[in-house]
């Protein structure tokens, strides 16, 4: 996927002017937080569960090599294979080789953000293999030739009328008179089309929410059951996973699953939690003949031991997106690459570079709502600030911004000079704005006054008035 993160401001501008997008975001802004709040209110030990989950992830990150090797050993013992891929290109080639070995024409896909990260769909298409997304949201985005705008709700940027229109465009045999505006009808239509694809697919690709070291299993959660059909019907199941998805035991996975669903959709548990362990065994009633795990690093091991390591605790619940006022204002596509919202603002620069993605960690008010809802307590604002520090030391910020900051920093470290300047400013502003009490425009402050008025200062600064008051008090105490 060609990143447009450098054009974040222009992307955001378009998003703010898109009425459909704004209508869709207006609905998600209230929905997700309310559901999460309710689910957490029903679980008094949620915070204790968070601490358990964090301890699991921190332990894994400190012993990643051990658990990954244990995982591989157990996958092999179950008759599967693990493919270690350093980067996106290696992962794509690995997937293609497996598909070719199975002479694949059609590949069904469950939802996978690693699939987006390595842009597997475009690559398979370029190699004459047809990928079919089977998650409803992903399917909608695919027929619209878009990318997901949210890590768990790929089509959250759309309203149902847009979806109906896309279905009419993609499903040519639909009778014109058939109503498609109701979500239930859309679901049935997608289901009818996808059922054929499930049966025809040669390979099924899914992501993984967790990889379990002790059993060599991969786990996915879905609400539609599409993942099960994707991975059990074809001859071959490929799991795409980044290596920090590993947990030591099934018990650990269940702790994290309890956090995941509540943080994500406000469910106590997802509708389907599917554990896959190796290919079909003798006596199994269904399942694929081959089971492959494509294990992707793509820069993650470079984060170990560094200031961004905590980001590897992320379980992709999207609570940070769902509670972010910036995300709610502009949607996910404006971020310009696979991951959006606060987790994207931290992760994207590690994957595609701070030069490309510099806007992302800057476009935050540091309101802290993301960190407060993160089940893994990832210090997202702190890490966005760390990116800003790297940018500052590389002089990546715009010149006007850097010089403004430098002048201000010079003044505030010289209180007497600062006092002169601030007094002059407050008195001048009060003089020119005092009659109305506010400014409708101000030179050098159009970023502010294009959108809102600037209330005028009272007049003299506090420090001046305070000094005057002290002076009066001392004079009145002096005996005549």
């Amino acid at each position, binding site marked *: 996927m060609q990143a447009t993160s450098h054009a974040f*401001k222009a992307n*955001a*501008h378009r998003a*703010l002017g898109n009425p459909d997008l704004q209508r869709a975001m207006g609905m998600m802004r209230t929905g997700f937080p309310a559901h999460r709040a309710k689910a957490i209110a029903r679980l008094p030990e949620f915070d204790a569960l968070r601490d358990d989950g964090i301890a699991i992830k921190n332990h894994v990150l400190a012993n990643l090599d051990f658990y990954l090797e244990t995982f591989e050993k157990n996958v092999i013992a179950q008759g599967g294979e693990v493919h270690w891929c350093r980067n996106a290109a290696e992962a794509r080639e690995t997937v293609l080789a497996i598909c070719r070995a199975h002479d694949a024409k059609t590949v069904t896909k469950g939802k996978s953000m690693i699939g987006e990260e390595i842009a597997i769909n475009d690559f398979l298409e370029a190699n004459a293999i047809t990928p079919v997304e089977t998650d409803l949201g992903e399917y909608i985005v695919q027929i619209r030739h878009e990318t997901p705008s949210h890590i768990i709700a790929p089509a959250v940027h759309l309203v149902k009328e847009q979806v109906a229109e896309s279905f009419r465009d993609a499903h040519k045999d639909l009778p014109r008179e058939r109503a498609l505006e109701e979500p239930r009808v859309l679901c049935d239509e997608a289901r009818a089309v996808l059922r054929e694809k499930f049966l025809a697919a040669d390979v099924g690709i899914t992501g993984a929410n967790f990889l379990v070291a002790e059993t060599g299993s991969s786990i996915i959660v879905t609400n539609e059951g599409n993942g099960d059909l994707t991975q059990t019907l074809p001859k071959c199941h490929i799991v795409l996973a980044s290596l920090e998805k590993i947990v030591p035991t099934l018990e650990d996975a269940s702790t994290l699953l309890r956090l995941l669903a509540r943080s994500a959709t406000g469910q106590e548990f997802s509708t389907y939690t599917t554990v896959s362990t190796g290919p079909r065994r003798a006596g199994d009633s269904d399942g694929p003949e081959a089971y492959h795990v494509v294990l992707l690093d793509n820069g993650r091991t470079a984060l170990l031991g560094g200031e961004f390591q905590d980001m590897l605790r992320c379980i992709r619940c999207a609570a940070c997106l769902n509670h972010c*006022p*910036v995300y709610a*204002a*502009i949607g996910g596509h404006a971020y310009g690459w696979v991951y959006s919202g606060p987790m994207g603002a931290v992760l994207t620069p590690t994957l595609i570079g701070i030069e490309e993605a510099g806007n992302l960690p*800057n*476009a*935050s*008010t*540091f*309101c*802290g*709502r993301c960190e*407060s809802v993160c089940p893994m307590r990832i210090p997202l604002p*702190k890490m966005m*600030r760390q*990116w*800003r*520090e*790297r*940018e*500052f030391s590389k002089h990546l*910020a715009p010149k006007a*911004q850097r010089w403004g*900051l430098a002048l*201000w*920093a010079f*003044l*505030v*470290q010289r*209180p007497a000079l600062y006092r002169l300047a*601030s007094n002059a400013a407050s008195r001048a502003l009060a003089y020119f704005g*005092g*009659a*109305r*009490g*506010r400014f*409708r425009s101000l030179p050098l*402050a159009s*970023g*502010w006054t*294009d*959108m*809102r*008025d*600037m*209330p*005028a*200062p*009272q007049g*003299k*600064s*506090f*420090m001046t*008035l*305070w*000094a005057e008051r002290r002076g009066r008090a001392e004079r009145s105490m002096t005996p005549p």
Partner: protein
Amino acid sequence: MAAIPHRVGLFVTCLVDLFRPAVGFAAVKLLEEAGCTVEVPALQTCCGQPAYNGGDRADAKAIARQVIAAFAGFDYVVVPSGSCGGMIKIHYPALFADEPALAEEAKALAARTYELVSFLTDVLNLTQVAASYSGTATYHDACSGLRELNVKAQPRRLLASVVGLALKEMATPEVCCGFGGTFCVKYPEISDKMVADKVADIAATGADTLLCGDMGCLLNMAGKLSRLGKPVRVRHVAEILADMTDAVPPLGVAAPAPRKDER
């Protein structure tokens, strides 16, 4: 009350100093009425947040050292802002994590530093104020005060004792108003969308007054309310609690011109 009054250093904050001295005087009045002696160190300017959040760690540290020096020796340091209070209380110790000697000083200052309303209630155990105000107010929870310093119930508790004041909650008082320091000028369109949503939430309550404990957020919301022509009176919560609303008009409203016979 302690026999020896608490010696409090007031950290005025740069926005109160520049835009709204009345908030500083309201803080002084509240603290003095609660039995504290208040001093205002002359060597203070700003807490350094613009540098810190702009990635300029060296300047942020230099400014923090200046604040640490200016406020040495006080029993408490009180700040009429959750944002600047959070900077001193939470972020100064983090800033000096790699300089143990200064980290100790930063931690000592952090332990003595409080946001104004939190100090009045959590430290001085104030449960009511002697103030009156005619109107219905809605209260915006500024982000840093709320999430870094746990300021949520304290202002509401004190406001409940203000005679004539009714409180009406907006739907999402904990959602950011879009100010965010330099964010509002770096990303003005996104900031505008956020403050427009906030202002719609405020207007939906029907309240005639908006209160909050942070000048940055107040300037932002007051500016948007007046641009949209919404007649909501915007004030820092300290002005109401100190019963000083007669001293200064609401934010963004001109002071009445003095009548000739008063000159």
